[in-house]
């Protein structure tokens, strides 16, 4: 199979994730979009790992780590969102503009 397919899939997922991060209002939705981006990265890693074909399976091992870290990140991120909700009673990230000039 051509390597292009998974790579294109990964690029697609990534760009869709970018759109979601920039456009969505709800913070949880933003987090979901981030997950999409991470998945795209994982696909890329695995694909290139297979292309390279090295003995220590770098691509897949790396992908595992990314997976684990992504999960941890979601957990902490949701914690932050919950805190934000508790203090501001909203998860609309447009309202989290205290850093505005």
């Amino acid at each position: 199979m051509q390597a292009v397919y998974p790579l294109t899939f990964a690029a697609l997922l990534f760009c869709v994730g970018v759109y979601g991060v920039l456009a969505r209002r709800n913070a949880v939705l933003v987090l979901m979009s981030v997950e999409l981006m991470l998945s795209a990265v994982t696909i890329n890693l695995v694909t290139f790992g297979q292309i390279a074909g090295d003995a220590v399976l770098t691509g897949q091992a790396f992908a595992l780590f990314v997976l684990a870290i992504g999960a941890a990140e979601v957990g902490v991120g949701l914690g932050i969102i919950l805190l934000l909700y508790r203090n501001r009673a909203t998860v609309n990230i447009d309202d989290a503009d205290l850093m505005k000039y």
Partner: protein
Amino acid sequence: MTLPDLLMLAVLVLGGASAVLVVVARNVVHAALYLVVALLAVAGTFLVIGAEFLAWTQVLIYVGAVVVLILFGLMLTRAPIGPIEADSDNRRLALATSVVLFVFLATMIFRAFGRTELPLSVTRTAALGEVLYVHWAFPFMSLGFFLTVALVGAIILARKEEGEGPEPQLDPEMATERPTPAPTDTSTTPGVTKPSEEITA
């Protein structure tokens, strides 16, 4: 067009569509469910490529844990039940950005790897395990440590104090308006500011 190609194409279409729906869906829960599909599609990609263990780990962790986590998060932050209001005003700009980015990436991919053949070999889990515990032992261990830290951190962050947080409102208009909390002024969580005047009714 061999079988792997076909399967890959199917997965691509499925995954792409569901990913798009994730970011476009008007209902947050629908978005979460579409996310499940997208992630399953990713797992499918792994299977096609030959990374079995990774595919099932993906399903286990992402679909099993992360999506559940997200759903819980939606619940705890009183996600609106009906359709949500329109997305951010930046969405046109965001669309432009992502399209440009995609075009660019795709061009790069096709130019660089247009002719590359992907060897499809199934990676035996035993081999992966062996590599993981021998060669990648150190990162593996620190990963465990890292996960512990993240766990502890998440707990600390999300811990609810007495009297904190807004009062729950069971209002049908809640979908289109923000919940109105009663002002609270006791807060012992460090770093939390409570400018009550910023909260509008």
